[in-house]
């Protein structure tokens, strides 16, 4: 390969730096005055080269930072340590602020003398806003999930302690009444009694589905096993978790598994199903797999099969959830939650 002459290299490099629009790249003299400027710096900060060259770089800092001596402090640190990275508010020419990521690098010549500083600035305002929105969304979802959990428990206890009790009393009363009636009326009351008993049974199932699953008492794996046994489902549980999840993560894992298993029971026509729990990326990876008919035309944004609810629960906990129907058949619900404990 032909070796390019030095002048051509540095010329190209200068052109590259001047043309970069996503990063403000410019140089300061040892005292902090601007000596070069590029297209990105103009775009981000609003100053043209001829307006800004020669001015002190503290122009870009908000008054409170200037008062506290932050610009000079940053140069001192860069000089002492070679470089400094910072994120914070900076000011544009028109006085508006933007959230910047800044890297200041001290530039020394061959004799070890400080020649100035290189400064690379990125406008992170949009990204910061997006991150903020994501955080807000997660927080909101977490509140919603928690509120939903509490509401479920309240409904479960109300139905259990009040409605079912009243229906049990009615059922006992009907049995008593049937004994005292002549045969021709007894059948009618027996039928009524049967209807009440069947309603009690359905309500008990409802309570079972929405009540707290008792994870804190028996652990996630056993709570899942109990759920499978109570719903007469044949599914294997492969538990390779290195560490039992905390209460919040455990309830989220349980509820998503419950939703996925309910789908399998109701829709999949599967002959086998399995729940795999493993530790991945300092978090909990869970796969609920079946060999059933799969979901045709799967749209994970559709409101069907509780897909959105599963995803929201996982995302509220800082994780993700995806549902797929592989070509060979069956459905895979896969989700991951971070282990947020130290």
């Amino acid at each position, binding site marked *: 390969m032909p070796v390019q002459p030095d002048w051509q290299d540095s010329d190209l490099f200068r052109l590259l730096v001047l043309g970069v629009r996503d990063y403000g790249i410019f140089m300061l003299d040892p005292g902090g005055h601007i000596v070069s400027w590029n297209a990105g710096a103009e775009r981000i900060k609003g100053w043209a080269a001829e307006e800004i060259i020669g001015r002190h770089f503290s122009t870009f800092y908000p008054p409170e930072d200037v008062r506290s001596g932050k610009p000079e402090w940053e140069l001192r640190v860069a000089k002492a340590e070679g470089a400094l990275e910072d994120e914070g508010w900076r000011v544009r020419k028109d006085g508006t602020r933007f959230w910047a990521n800044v890297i200041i690098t001290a530039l020394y010549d061959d004799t070890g003398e400080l020649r100035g500083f290189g400064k690379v600035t990125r406008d992170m305002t949009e990204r910061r806003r997006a991150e903020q929105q994501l955080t807000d969304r997660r927080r909101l979802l977490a509140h919603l999930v928690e509120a939903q959990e509490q509401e479920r428990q309240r409904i479960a206890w109300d139905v259990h*302690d009040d409605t079912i*009790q*009243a229906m049990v009393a009615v059922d006992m*009363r009907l049995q008593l009444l049937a004994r005292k009636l002549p045969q021709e009326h007894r059948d009618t009351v027996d039928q009524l009694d049967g209807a009440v008993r069947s309603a009690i049974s359905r309500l008990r199932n409802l309570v079972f589905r929405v009540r707290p699953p008792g994870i804190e008492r028996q652990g996630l794996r056993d709570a899942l096993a109990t759920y499978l046994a109570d719903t007469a489902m044949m599914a294997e549980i492969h538990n390779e978790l290195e560490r039992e999840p905390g209460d919040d993560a455990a309830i989220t894992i349980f509820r998503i598994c419950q939703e996925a298993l309910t789908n399998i029971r109701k829709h999949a026509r599967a002959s086998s199903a399995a729940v795999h729990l493993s530790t991945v990326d300092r978090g909990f990876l869970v796969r609920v797999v079946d060999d059933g008919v799969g979901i045709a035309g799967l749209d994970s944004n559709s409101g069907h099969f509780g897909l959105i609810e599963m995803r929201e629960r996982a995302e509220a906990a800082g994780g993700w959830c995806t549902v797929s129907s592989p070509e060979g058949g069956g459905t895979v619900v896969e989700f991951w939650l971070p282990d947020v404990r130290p």
Partner: protein
Amino acid sequence: MRVLIADDDPLIRDVLRDVLDDEPDLEVVAVASDAREAVELAELHLPSVVVLDVRMPHGGGARAATEILQRAPGTRIVAFSAYTDVGAVDEMRRAGVTEYLAKGVRNTELVDVVRRLGEQ
């Protein structure tokens, strides 16, 4: 055969009394609406069998069972509860309860259990 009923739900209390009183050999001698009252009435009436709810005000069924058995050790107690989880059953067994029936059993089964306990 003398029976005491304790349940905080008035509907259940009333129908329990009627179901048991409907049997010629059973007599409901007292009806309590909480754990404390259950203990007091058991001491007063010395029933053969107590039909005891599990979740009740003033200490719940487990405490009532313990205290009744302290004061009248010959009493037989059947827990009659909507809660059938292992924890609830264990707690009542430890308190000395002989039988545990889930609310929703047939009246005949309840009557049979009360009668069997009373004959022991």
